[in-house]
C-alpha cells in the first residue's frame, strides 16, 4: 500500500511537470511588479502611461548601480530602518540594512515609500526620462507607494520579520525550534527558500518575478508551509 502510494505520488509529480499549464502570475509580466504600460494580468491600477519596458523599473544592462543585480532603481536615502528585536530572538548578527549594500535594501528602494517607483538610474532610451505613472490608487502623485498601503513598509523594519542575518546550524540549535538549513544557499532540500551567503533576506520568502504564491512568495504558504520551512513549532 505504501509503495503503491509512493508510485502514485511520483507519477503525479511527473504528470504535473509535463502538463501543468503556465500558472497565472508565474511570469513577471502578469504581476503587480509589471509597472509598465504593457498589458499584463493582475497589474496595479497606477501603471505607467508612457513606459512599455518592464525590466527597466528595476534592471539595466549597463552602468548598473549596484552592479549586481544590474540595478536600475534609485535607492532609498533612509539611513536606518532599525531591526526587529525580541527577547527570544537568537540571531545575533541582524544588521540594519539602511545605507548598506545588502540585497534586501534593493527591495526597500520602492517598498519604504520614500522613492517613486519610477525613479530610475538609466531611463529607457525611447522615452529618455523617468516613466510617468498613474496615481491615486496604489501610488501617490510622486510615484511612491501610497501611505497606508500594506506594501509601503515605511522606514522602520522593527515590526517586520527580521532580514539580513545569518541562518545556520548554530542558530537552529540555539533556537531549538528552527530547521537546520541544508546549505548556505537554501534552507530546505527542495530549494524553495533561498539564503544569500547564508543569510535570510527579503528574497528568502519573496520571489519578485513570480506571484504564483501571492504575495510573491517563494513557495506556497498554504498550511503555513513557507513559515514552517524554517519555524518548526
Amino acid at each position, binding site marked *: 500500500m505504501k509503495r503503491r502510494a509512493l508510485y502514485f505520488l511520483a507519477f503525479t509529480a511527473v504528470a504535473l511537470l509535463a502538463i501543468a499549464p503556465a500558472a497565472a502570475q508565474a511570469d513577471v509580466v502578469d504581476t503587480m511588479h509589471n509597472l509598465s504600460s504593457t498589458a499584463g494580468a493582475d497589474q496595479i491600477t497606477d501603471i505607467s502611461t508612457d513606459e512599455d519596458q518592464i525590466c527597466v523599473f528595476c534592471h539595466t544592462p549597463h552602468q548598473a548601480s549596484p552592479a549586481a543585480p544590474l540595478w536600475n532603481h534609485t535607492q532609498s536615502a533612509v539611513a536606518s530602518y532599525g531591526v526587529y528585536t525580541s527577547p527570544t530572538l537568537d540571531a545575533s548578527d541582524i544588521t540594519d540594512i539602511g545605507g548598506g549594500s545588502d540585497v534586501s535594501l534593493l527591495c526597500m528602494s520602492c517598498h519604504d515609500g520614500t522613492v517613486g517607483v519610477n525613479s530610475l538610474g538609466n531611463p529607457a532610451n525611447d522615452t529618455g526620462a523617468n516613466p510617468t505613472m498613474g496615481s491615486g490608487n496604489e501610488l501617490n502623485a510622486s510615484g511612491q507607494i501610497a501611505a497606508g498601503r500594506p506594501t509601503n513598509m515605511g522606514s522602520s523594519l522593527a515590526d517586520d520579520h527580521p532580514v539580513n542575518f545569518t541562518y545556520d546550524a548554530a542558530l537552529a540549535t540555539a533556537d531549538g525550534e528552527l530547521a537546520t538549513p541544508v546549505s548556505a544557499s537554501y534552507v530546505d532540500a*527542495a530549494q524553495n527558500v533561498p539564503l544569500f551567503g547564508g543569510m535570510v533576506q527579503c528574497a528568502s520568502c519573496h520571489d519578485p518575478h513570480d506571484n504564483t504564491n501571492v504575495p510573491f512568495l517563494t513557495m506556497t504558504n498554504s498550511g503555513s508551509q513557507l513559515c514552517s520551512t524554517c519555524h518548526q513549532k
Partner: protein
Amino acid sequence: MRRRITLTVAVALLLAGPAAADLATSKHNLSTSGPGPIAADSESRLCVFCHTPHNARPAVPLWNHESSVETYSTYTSTTLQVATPLNDPDGSSKLCLSCHDGTVALGQTVNDGLISLLNTGTGGRMPVGRANLGSDLTDDHPVSFVRTPANLETVDPPPGDPVKLDDAGKVQCISCHEPHVEDIDPVELRFLVKDNRQSAICTTCHAVDFWTANPSSHQSSTASYGVAQGAHTGYGTVRDNGCASCHRPHSGNEPQRLLKFAEELTCDACHDGTVAQKNIAVEFSAKTYTHPTYDTAGVHDASEHPTDPTFPLPETDPGARRHAECQDCHNPHATYDANASAPNVTGALAGTWGVNAGGSRVDPAPYQYQICYKCHAGSANKPQEGGLPNPPYTDRQIVQFDVALEFDPSNPSHHAIEGPGRNGNVPSLIGGYDESSILYCTDCHNNDDAPGSGGTAPQGPHGSDFNHILERNLNYGDNNTGSNYGQMYAMCFKCHSQTSILNDVSFGEHDKHIRGEDTSCMVCHDPHGVSGTQGSDTANSNLINFDLSVITPSGSGQLRFEDQGTFRGACWLTCHGEDHDPLTY
C-alpha cells in the same frame, strides 16, 4: 519555477504522516487543518491567527491578532508581596488576552482581516468556558509583575528552565504556557511549558516552606485523587496533583490564594472521607461542640499577625467574631505524619505560627499550646470577665479567660502545659504521667471518639459531644446524683486515679465531697490554673478556685482556702448549708 512548485507539492505530500506533538495538532491550530472544534472554514495557514511577517502590531512577536482594549480587574491578595492590586497585564500576556479575554473575535487579525472560524462563541469570540478568562483576572494567577526578593517563599526560575521570566524579569502567561505546544504535559494538556506532574512548574518559582523539607503529606501522599474526587488536572493522586489538589491557577472559587473553594471547603473536599483516611468534616457536622470553622466565613485571613493592622491575631477588637479556620491550626504546606511528645507540635500542626507565653508571634510554633494561645490567650474577643458567655463558664471566685495567664509556670497552681506543675506530690497520677510530665491542651480538649478515648476517629479538638470540646465527659457543679463516678468525672479520672481520689490518698475529704455530697471536682478545682496575678500560693495551690454558684462565704464572711502543708489545709466557706469557718484537714 514550475518544477520547483510541483516538487514542493510532492515532497509535502510525501512528508505528510502522523503529526508530531506540535502546533499543528494543538487547539491553537485554528486553520482548516486544526483538530477543532474551533477551526477555520477556509484559511489553511496556522501562523496567521497570531503572527504576520510585516507591519506587525505589536512588532514583537510579529503579532497579527487584533489586540484587546479591555481593562481588567487583577489579582489581589492580603499576602501578595508585590503591588496590590497588580497593574493590568502587559507584554506578551496582553497578546494572549487578545483571544482569551473573550472580547475580540478569534479570527480578527491586523493584516489579514476577519478570518472566518467555525464553532466560536458569540461574535466569533472565545466561547464561555475555562479558556475564556474574561476581564476579571482576580481569580487568575497574576502576571506582568516582578517577583520581590522579600518573598522568601519564591525564587526566580533557574537559567535554562522552561519556566521563564520575560526580559523585564516579569512573570507572564508564557512563564507557564507554551502556546505552540499543547501536550508537553501530556496529562494536563494545557499548553504548559513542562510536565507539571507533582507541580514541577509551580515549584519552579514557589519554594514553599516545609513543602519538600518535611515533606508535607500533601506533597507526598499517594492517596487517590482524580477526576472523580474533583481533581482538575487529570492526575490521579494527591502527590501528582501537588499544588493543584488545593489551588487552581485560573478561575478557582476562592480568588485569594487561588484556592479551589472557600476556606474549609477546600480542605473538606478531601478530608471528608473520600481521599484522606480520616473524615474530619463529619466532626464539625455531627458533634455538638466544635471549633467555629464552618460557622464563620470571611473572618479569618492568611495575613493574620499580632502586628497586622487589618487582621490582628490575637484579636484587638472585643467585638470581633470568634473564628477558627483549618489554617489557623494547620499549615497545609507543612502538615505531615509525625508523632511528638508534649509540648512539641505533632506533624499535624507543623509549620503553623503561634503565640508564645509572652504574647509574641513564633513562626513556626514549636509547642502545641502556642497555637491555642493565638485565640485563647490575649485575644480581646475571648470570653470576658463580667459578661459570662454562652456556653456558660463556671462562675469562679477568680475569673480569668487568658489561658496563658492560667498556665504560667510560676502560678500558685496550674496544669502542666507550659512546664511541669507546681505540686511535687500527686499520688493519684496514672497513665504514665508523673509530677514532671507536660501535657498537651489536646490531652483534655479532643475528639471524644479519638484514640485518646478509645475510638478511631481523627485526633484533635475539631469537635466533641462534650462541652468545651473535652475528650471525655465531665459533670460540673452540685447535685451530681448517681454512682457512676467514672462516667461523671471521666475527664479527670483519665489521669487522676478514681481509686486514689475516692480513697482519700491526698485530700482526706475527697470521698465525702464527691460521693457524699454529689459535688463535682470542678466546684473546688479550676482545671487550667490560677494566675499569680490574681491568686496566691497559700490560697490557690492545688488548683483551688471555688465555683461561686455552689459555694458561698462562711459564717464569718470569709471565702477562702488556706494551704497548710502536704495534704493539709483549711476552708472558710459555706456549702450545702454547712458552715466551714474554718474546717481543717
